[in-house]
């Protein structure tokens, strides 16, 4: 009764069973309502669940901002926020209070409705993705049978938010940032979606819970190339370094959100800090087996651990690498990531054809064979691409003194 997509997305089913179903009816709302008003119980259930998810995400993001800033502090031989609360844990709340009490400036020339709407368009997809992540074994929402498609579709809305913000603020810096943003975000969606196809093929399902449970051998091991492309494309999707040219502090001041301040700017920051969490949780489900792990820890704990390892890598990349130039970022998407993602997809499909048994399935030994082949292929492909596109092949020329200098001779 609950298998349809909308039910899963809005969380109707779980609470419908709980509230609206006359046979369960723990809260005794459903049975008292006439048949024609059951939609009300539906809506109530949906809003309750949405409130729970959004508030949980907000709190986790607040903790994550602290985590990231502490980590960046350590990376840059500083301490990071450590003043308010134990280890500075309350810092995010201080930041939020400061930001929402600041003056909220809307430029005169700005398109007010679009300007106001843009932060929301950017922040909501992050929350929506969290709704379908299977955090535990009995997570109901994770059973949405088109989970992967849902995530790819919903995260695509980001592009619109970036463009709305840049366009509506009538600022040249904003417009340049938005222009870059649209070009980059759309380009990187292609390799990201393609890198997931291999996972979907192996799991035989688009549902996130099915994918998480279909990994006797982690997809990270079976398709390293897919994982790599996913991680890189995802960090471009959330426009973090080295792909942060949308904001490009040193060039475009703050890119598309140059003109924003106060609470709206806080919402942009919220979106920016939710993105790595979203990516890490999705990556955990797709490639690291979700809640699976030795029984020393409960499933959700494994999930969080894996997600934070991925987040750590995002932060590490962010503080180490400089930004790429716009044309280089686009080149990288189409000349490096796109072929790699395609290769991964074809190789996985071919191996499945070759290795599948009489019943059409793969057993664990087949997966290990695939892992061995794919790792070798991945290394060859990466070195090949690096050789074709990379700079390291260019030898540094030996300096030759110019004849224009006559340092040995006294000029006067």
């Amino acid at each position, binding site marked *: 009764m609950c298998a349809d997509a909308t039910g899963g997305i809005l969380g109707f089913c779980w609470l419908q069973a709980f509230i609206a179903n006359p046979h369960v009816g723990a809260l005794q709302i459903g049975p008292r309502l006439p048949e024609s008003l059951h939609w009300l119980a539906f809506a109530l259930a949906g809003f309750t669940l949405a409130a729970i998810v959004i508030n949980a995400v907000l709190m986790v993001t607040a903790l994550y901002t602290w985590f990231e800033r502490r980590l*960046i502090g350590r*990376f*840059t*031989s*500083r301490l990071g926020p450590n003043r308010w609360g134990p280890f500075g844990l309350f810092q995010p709340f201080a930041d939020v209070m400061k930001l929402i009490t600041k003056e909220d400036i809307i430029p005169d020339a700005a398109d007010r409705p679009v300007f106001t709407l843009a932060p929301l368009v950017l922040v909501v997809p992050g929350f929506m993705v969290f709704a379908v992540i299977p955090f535990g074994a009995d997570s109901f929402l994770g059973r949405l049978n088109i989970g992967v498609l849902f995530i790819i579709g919903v995260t695509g809305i980001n592009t619109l938010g970036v463009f709305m913000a840049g366009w509506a603020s009538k600022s*040249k*810096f904003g*417009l*340049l940032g938005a222009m*870059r943003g649209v070009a980059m975000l759309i380009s990187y969606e292609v390799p990201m979606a393609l890198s997931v196809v291999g996972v979907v093929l192996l799991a035989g399902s688009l549902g996130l819970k099915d994918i998480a449970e279909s990994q006797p051998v982690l997809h990270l091991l079976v398709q390293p190339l897919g994982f790599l492309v996913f991680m890189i494309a995802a960090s471009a999707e959330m426009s*973090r*370094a*080295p792909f*942060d*040219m949308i904001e*490009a*502090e*040193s*060039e475009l*001041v703050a890119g598309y959100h140059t003109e924003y301040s106060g609470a709206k700017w806080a919402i942009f920051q919220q979106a920016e800090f939710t993105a790595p969490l979203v990516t890490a949780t999705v990556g955990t489900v797709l490639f690291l087996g979700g809640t699976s792990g030795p029984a020393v820890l409960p499933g959700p704990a494994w999930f969080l651990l894996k997600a934070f390892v991925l987040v750590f890598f995002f932060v590490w990349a*962010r*503080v*180490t*690498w*400089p*930004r*790429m*130039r*716009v*044309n*280089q970022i686009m080149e990288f998407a189409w000349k490096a990531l796109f072929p790699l993602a395609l290769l991964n997809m074809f190789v996985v499909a071919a191996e499945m054809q070759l290795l599948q048994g009489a019943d059409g399935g793969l057993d664990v030994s087949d997966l290990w064979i695939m892992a061995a082949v794919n790792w070798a292929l991945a290394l060859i492909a990466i070195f090949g691409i690096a050789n074709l596109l*990379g*700079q*390291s092949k*260019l030898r*540094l*020329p*030996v*300096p*030759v*003194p*110019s004849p*224009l*200098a006559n*340092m040995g001779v*006294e*000029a006067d």
Partner: protein
Amino acid sequence: MPLRTEPVTINLGPQHPSTHGVFRLRVTFDGESVVDVEPVFGYLHRGTEKLAEERTFTQIVTLTDRLDYVSSMSNNLSYVQAVEKLGDIPVPERAQYLRVISAELQRIASHLVFIGFFMQEMGVFGGTLLMYSFRERERILDLFEMLCGARITLSYMRPGGVTQDAPPEFWPSMAGLMQEMPGYIDELEGLITQNEIVLARTRNVGVLSDELAVNASITGPILRASGVQWDLRKAHPYAVYDRVDFDVPIGATGDVFDRYLVRVQEMRESVKIIGQCVEQIEAGPVKTEGPFFVRPRAGDAYAAVENPKGELGFYLVSDGGISPYRCKIRSPSFINLTVLKELLVGGQVGDLVVVFGSLDVNLGEVDR
């Protein structure tokens, strides 16, 4: 049908994250490529040259600190040499060595600042490299504090010597730093020099030909990165540079990467120079005693040193009084900026900031 695009003019600065102070760049973009560039400066003009006419020869030393405020020692050195030339003031040998040591420490500090901000402009989030390079610079500033009590505006040198001898604890501290410095430089280089993204963004970007560099009277690391082996320390040795052995590193192509690489190599050479100076320095006076007011002969003199950023020269005209009749500063940052348009037009928006950063100008010196 060709798509019609419209050039957009943007004011980068005076308030902008990567303008090294208050510098304004009117840039016209067509999409992502730069069509026109017009540098506008003068926002930090303090009239240093005019102020110098109202101060005594000794007081002007403090003004020179504020020119290029990340290389005050070299500024001091250039100025006091001009005064000494004008007034025929002898300088004790120990003072000469102290001057060279502090000027080379300053060169390392200034190049560290360059590397930090250069990487910041390349977009390393959170200023990782900036913090790394400032960690080392901090130790150099500690040494300066031991020498003269100040960290930024040093005013360590005086016509006829330096204000005071280095305290005993200065030498072991500096020896320790100099021992660790090559390791620090290796660490920075490990993060930058072979980095794929750095290479992709800096190789063959903002190429300055040796001919243009010489014709535009570019000096310093930028000139040497274009392959012109010209260093005042070798060409017209001052202080005790003729007694130390060091190389003048040059670049091959004159692109942004070479400008970075030349500076890194210069830091290594500076460590070498300081080591030799420490071996050669002998006890003795550090200042020639003279009258309270320096009154050089009427006439003029020009003295130049190899600043971290190029040739910093002071041209002093004296009428025999206690302050110069005219003081002209040849500031390397200002003259190095003149090629900005040639380097930027035709490039990309992303290159703009990187090329500007590679010139390593200091607005205190540009505007004076």
